[in-house]
């Protein structure tokens, strides 16, 4: 037993030493590290579906993210028991369109869930998500069952060192984060990173530890395959639940990016903030989750007519 392990290690060392030469040279050739410029697509003035189609076309189509036979989980914001026009939840039209595209791309299954704040059945029904799932052939799954969550270590986390995460997020091949852009009374803004609080079981630990740091820490667990932000009519006050339809402004916008920090940085600008003012954005950038400096982002702007 011992000898075989020693042999194995020896063999490993030999291979490794052989490799490092090549690898070292390869790295040296690229020694002035140009971080890859993340792509951010910003679309305006279209229907939610049209803007989604345009954004995906810019990113290489849905086929660039969903391959036949893969399992997909869509994580919209369905936190509140309010109708779509209030802007507290991701709009069901956007989610339905995305689910249909995933199915057309050959996805084996498309699941939708959120760990809601209000009572979950009421949230799913009132938000229109139940109907959206039915119309698009997606499966709406409860986020209110602790047995569906598994403990995950977060080695890169500063404040949040572990969390119980919904198994759909851990097990699905494709993980699509579809937040809605809103004002938030605690974190000033809720966007893509904050939306991921809805995939963990215990949110209280975020609030009682360090909300912004925990939001940033969690992004190191599994970055979403793609982030698509519904900014059609962002709620700009009384967030995140809102009080009335008068709380939203119609911007008719949609953002999409694989970089969760870049998309939140752009979104914060839309709400009139400097990205640095939303503390979890610089904290996540510092953890290397994504790019906060929008100058370093390949932003593709489209205005549909």
């Amino acid at each position, binding site marked *: 037993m011992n000898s075989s392990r020693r042999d194995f290690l020896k063999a490993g060392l030999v291979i490794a030493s052989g490799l490092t030469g090549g690898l070292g040279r390869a790295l040296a050739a690229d020694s002035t590290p140009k971080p890859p410029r993340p792509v951010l697509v910003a679309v305006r003035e279209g229907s939610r579906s049209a803007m989604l189609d345009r954004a995906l076309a810019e990113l290489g189509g849905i086929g660039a993210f969903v391959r036949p036979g893969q399992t997909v989980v869509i994580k919209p914001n369905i936190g509140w028991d309010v109708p779509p026009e209030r802007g507290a939840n991701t709009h069901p039209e956007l989610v339905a369109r995305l689910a249909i595209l995933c199915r057309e791309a050959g996805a084996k299954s498309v699941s939708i869930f959120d760990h809601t*704040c*209000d*009572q979950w059945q*009421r949230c799913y029904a009132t938000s229109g998500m139940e109907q959206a799932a039915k119309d698009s052939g997606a499966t709406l799954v409860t986020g209110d069952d602790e047995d569906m969550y598994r403990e995950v270590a977060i080695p890169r986390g500063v404040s949040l060192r572990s969390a119980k995460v919904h198994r759909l997020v851990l097990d699905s091949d494709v993980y699509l984060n579809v937040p809605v852009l809103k004002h*938030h*009374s*605690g974190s000033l803004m809720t966007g893509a990173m904050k939306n991921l609080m809805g995939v963990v079981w215990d949110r209280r630990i975020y609030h009682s530890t360090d909300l912004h740091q925990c939001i940033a820490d969690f992004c190191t667990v599994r970055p979403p395959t793609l982030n698509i932000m519904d900014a059609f009519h962002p709620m700009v006050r009384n967030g995140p639940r809102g*009080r009335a339809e*008068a709380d939203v402004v119609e911007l008719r916008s949609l953002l999409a990016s694989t970089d969760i920090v870049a998309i939140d940085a752009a979104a914060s*600008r839309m709400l009139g903030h400097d990205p640095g003012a939303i503390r979890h954005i610089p904290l996540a950038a510092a953890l290397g989750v994504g790019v906060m400096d929008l100058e370093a982002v390949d932003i593709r702007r489209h205005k549909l007519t």
Partner: protein
Amino acid sequence: MRRLLRPLRRTLGLACLAALTAAFVDFRGLVPAQLSHWLAAIQFAPALRSAGAGLAAATVLLLIVGATLAFGRVYCSTLCPLGLLQDVMARLAAWVRPRPRPLRFVPGNRWVRYGVLAAVVVGIAGGAGAVVFTWTDPYSHFGRIATGLFRPLLVAANNGLVPASQHFDASWLYRVPFRWPAPAVALPALTLLVLLAVLVAWRERIFCNTLCPVGTMLGLFARHAAFQITLAPEACTKCAACLKACKAQCIDLRRGRVDASRCVGCFNCIAACPEQGLAYACVWTLPAVAPDPDTCPSAPVADPTRRALLAGLAAMAVTPVLAAGEPRRRRGNPAPDESPRGPAVPPGAGSTRHFLSRCTACQLCVSACPTQVLQPAGLEHGFAALAKPLLDFEHAFCNYDCHRCGEVCPTGAIAPLSTAEKRLTSVGVARFEPSRCVVETNGTDCAACSEHCPTKAVFTEPHRNNLRLPRVDEELCIGCGACEYACPVRPVRAITVSPRAVHTRAKPPTDAVPATPPVKGDFPF
């Protein structure tokens, strides 16, 4: 016709029991609130409890009494869930251990029957109606049995099936948070269920025709019912087949009579008689007994049975009046708005005082509450109000747009409110203690309370070091408990709801001015 009686009774009874059981064990909100309400509102005691306050309840009461005067105690075999439950128990017992029924006719025990009824009437007249109704109403007993015992079993069974169902991708089956039933509900319910099991095994419906005050009261009318079960002496061979079938032991074969005040109208005897010697026929020979005492010609000789009927009517007539008036304020009692503070009671209750006096702790609202913020009290409301609901913000909060509790309540303890009214009904007010808040103690942002607040009574203001500290606008607060529920501080939360003994109307949130876009330009980046 005689052949149809028993199937008709069985169909109605089974439908009623199944529907009411479903209303109480429904952990997925599948039973429509209006159906739940009406299944409960057509029960005798809830109707009697609220007859003084509502036309619908008074109508229900008149219909039940009218039906009893016409057909006998059919209520006990078609509508009363506790009676029907005993029928099911007898069925199960016969299935497990078949044995012949007692053949004996047992004369009614007048002392026990009328003693219990008199005690109930005296209790209500003495101002203890809130307690008496709660612990003598068969419907409320059933509610506690179904909610306290059946429902947890069903939830556990559901949760047990969930892992297996996932192999079949059955997302329609999902886990429901299991809660151990509150002892204040489950222990009395279990005690009664065991007692019923013993009584059913001993003498089947003896609870209904001897102990139950509703049964005794209806019996006062039933003994004068137009349609009664009659024995044809010429056909009777004294084979006693009817006695074997009788669950009320009320067929006096020797005298050829059926005690209609104890007969629960199951019609088993009619079906059992091989000679077809039993009939269900009109026994009224006008003008001997008139259906309506008001139009009844005054009898020349005092008839003891008619006296009983009048006594029943009188007792029933004063009950709602007494019930509506109580609890009577004793000398030195504080004014209602200064009454001692208990836990919060649901919106629509008006005040804790009104709520506790009307509620019979049937648990229908507790079952119907989608967030389960409504929970039966232990001793929080006091011993006299054991098992009556309270708002428990420890594990849940009251949904802003929901008023299912008021929709289902059969006694008017929780009045139905429109969604608009519900949103402005303040059952308590949030109190914020900054010294406990994580924003102060940790120096980090939180705002879980304000995040959950539906009216923005809890909002945040800029605080030191770029933080945001919660504040409460008490005029906007409706006491829904979302802030208290969400607050992460333990053991004592930084924001808690202080209940109002008398509910008030909150200030409507004003959002007349539309929000404006924060930045100009198509792409501010």
